[in-house]
């Protein structure tokens, strides 16, 4: 059984969206440490959509989130927006080997998402970006 939330892609809704995901993960039995990591990954996805997905349009569209166990082993967070097509899997990894003085300030969000989740999938279907974060059952 999947839980679902729909909210305009605006910064003021970030807290509600993240809280929805963490509540769902907690309810499904993930320990607090893993819940925090799930929150970070989800937040990175939401912030990207809020900042970029609808920038080419006059008004912001929505973010739809569905969470739950896909089967007995995989907890999924499916995040859908109808903004500009954007495949996070094509984004180059930031250079984290250079010393701090040469580091770029941004670009870590998608990297965190990939590192913290067991799997990240992307599809573009019927004019929508569908990003799926997968967390294996502990």
């Amino acid at each position, binding site marked *: 059984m999947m839980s679902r939330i729909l909210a305009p892609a605006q910064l003021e809704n970030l807290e509600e969206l993240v809280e929805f995901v963490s509540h769902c993960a907690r309810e499904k039995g993930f320990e607090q440490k893993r819940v925090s990591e799930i929150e970070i990954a989800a937040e990175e996805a939401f912030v990207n959509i809020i900042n970029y997905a609808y920038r080419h349009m006059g008004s912001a569209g929505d973010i739809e989130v569905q969470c739950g166990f896909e089967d007995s082993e995989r907890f999924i967070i499916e995040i859908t927006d109808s903004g500009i097509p954007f495949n996070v899997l094509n984004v180059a990894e930031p250079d984290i080997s250079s010393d701090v003085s040469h580091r770029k300030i941004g670009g870590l969000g998608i990297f965190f998402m990939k*590192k913290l989740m067991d799997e990240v999938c992307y599809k573009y279907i019927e004019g929508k970006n569908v990003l799926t974060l997968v967390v294996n059952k502990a």
Partner: protein
Amino acid sequence: MSLTTKIENKRPGYSLVTLSGRLDGQTFAECEAQIAPLLVPSTKIIMFDMTGLNYISSMGLRIVLKVRKFVEGNNGSFHMINLQPQIEKVFEIANLLGDMKLFVSVEEADQYFDAMQMKVLNNEI
């Protein structure tokens, strides 16, 4: 869910920033604005007390990185104390802990800076 940013001038050129709560995509802007006045040439040491910080995302990490780049670029030093495990993990993923001196308490840091200052005064550095 919110963030409290407390800034304390410990001694000339040395500021302690105490963060409590969540440093995320929603709270980072106000935090950044509060910290901005510290990014001046006279600032030589900035210490972040992370004891009460229980969540950080990439937007939060940007602030820490920005402050660190400024201070180190200004020939100063940047430090953090008491990172909770989930916070430390985020810094580790970003490979930002390796060469940083971490203290367990403000007291330990104070002793270290006192010793540093003595060395500077005695022309040992």
